[in-house]
């Protein structure tokens, strides 16, 4: 069995099992931890709109803080947007997803994908450097932050190398790229990458709780 065969076969399967196992564990556990029925009298009953409002309002910083955190705000959106395009609109990636989902969607030209991948990589490296050097960010960061950045950064770098056939034979680069994605999948449920699943439900839940109590947030 070659490295590529392992990466696209058993390696991928094990990574997926751990990924699915971890995700359901975290999500089901979080759902079951929700507080039981609140017996206090609600100040507002339209908690769903309050929840949706919180999802929306937390997508941009409060006006008072905007100037202070502009760098994180802009780079955060640039990073997520570039990653989203690179992962979901590269033709070989779509074929990868199609092999399990059974359906596909239109792709973008490789040149655009290469640009977005480079932007995503550069922004993530900039954010990593900032996290490691900024006194406050450094103070509030733990190993989870650095591991989560690392396991996302490596697939980006190996993906660009595989795309450009740079540094080694294509099949080796592709195998390393797949393996790095598998490491990310395995880490995903157990670290801060879980925010991809949890962010919106958590905002919604907080928004509904605030809405019930009449807190405008």
């Amino acid at each position, binding site marked *: 069995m070659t490295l590529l065969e392992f990466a*696209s076969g058993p390696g991928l399967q094990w990574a997926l099992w751990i990924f699915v*196992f971890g995700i359901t*564990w975290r999500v089901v556990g979080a759902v079951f931890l929700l507080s039981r029925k609140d017996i206090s009298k609600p100040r507002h009953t339209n908690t769903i709109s309050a929840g949706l409002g919180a999802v929306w309002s937390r997508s941009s910083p409060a006006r008072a803080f905007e100037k202070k955190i502009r760098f994180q705000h802009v780079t955060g959106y640039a990073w997520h947007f570039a990653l989203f395009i690179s992962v979901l609109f590269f033709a070989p990636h779509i074929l990868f997803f199609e092999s399990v989902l059974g359906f596909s969607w239109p792709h973008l030209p490789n040149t655009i994908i290469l640009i977005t991948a480079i932007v995503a990589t550069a922004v993530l490296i900039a954010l990593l450097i900032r996290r490691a050097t900024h006194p406050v960010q450094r103070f509030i960061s733990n190993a989870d932050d650095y591991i989560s950045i690392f396991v996302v950064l490596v697939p980006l770098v190996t993906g660009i190398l595989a795309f450009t056939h740079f540094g080694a034979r294509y099949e080796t680069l592709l195998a390393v790229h797949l393996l790095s994605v598998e490491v990310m999948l395995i880490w995903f449920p157990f670290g801060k990458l879980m925010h991809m699943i949890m962010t919106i439900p958590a905002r919604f839940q907080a928004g509904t709780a605030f809405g019930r109590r009449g807190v405008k947030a």
Partner: protein
Amino acid sequence: MRKDQNLGEYLRMQGVSRRGFLKFCSATASLMALPPSAVSQVAEALATARRPSVIWMSFQECTGCTESLTRSHAPTLESLIFDAISLDYHHTLQAAAGHGAEAAREAAMEENKGEYILVVDGSIPNGNNGYSTIAGISNHDMLIEAAENCFAIVAVGTCAAFGGLPNADPNPTGAVSVSEIIKDKPIINVSGCPPIPVVITGVLAHFLTFGTIPELDALGRPVAFFGQNIHDRCYRRPFYERGQFAETFDDEGARKGWCLYKLGCKGPTTYNACATLKWNQGTSFPIQSGHGCIGCSEPRFWDKGGFYDPISAGQWGSRDALLGAAAAGAALGVGSALAARARKKKAQAAEEI
């Protein structure tokens, strides 16, 4: 060609002009990735080369490799070079049969001890020697005997180089490649199903010119021919970059000659010279004919998933296994949530006391 005649004399006798011969030498030097200054060396060496003895053994094979070499195109300088070797044994091509043929093989081996080139096509059944025999001798024993005093071995075709089709799962004959049996001789793997004829003649020209084996890659293939993947040299590569793919074999993309990646083309992971040398005197190659590369020059190409599955498609395993993982995760989630509640209750009770 007489035994004492050199190649230059023979080619002149066949009506090949000096200009034509030098043109061939330039092409051969270029094929072997040699600098232009090496052309005169190639020409001189080839012109004075004596015909080397070649013993060709066909084991578990389909004769496609021989067909490729002998019937692929009209006679050319390459085929004249091929004529110029002393093909002392080839049971498909030789007129002799039975004991006479075997006697010719043994005589050639004895006469050219340590100097002959052994060409092998087909894999060797290692499970049961009775699966393939020639004149009552098993392929395994005949290979060992012939390899003992050869100068080098050229494993022609993917079967001889890597086991090929007979080696495909479940490999009923226990088929193996030449290199899995012979460990003490230089082996040049000229893989492909079948290999490109000019690659064979290129390897032979290298022998005649330098008397050595060419530079080989990690799989024992000549780097000059197998150094780059087909995707990098494919004329359809710009369509890949632009994201223009044929979705089916008869859609507009296919008619316009767009990239065949989505239809399972294995060009990116296949190392061969098809896209540059092509077939039938440089006329075409599979991708140019509208079908994706199936990766026939790579080991275990038959067992590496579907020919029509894109390279980037993953093998995700069964849905049941994924559902099982999800069920286990959900059970653990419920369990850990209940445990957390119990801890909370206990803590609250302790506080109340």
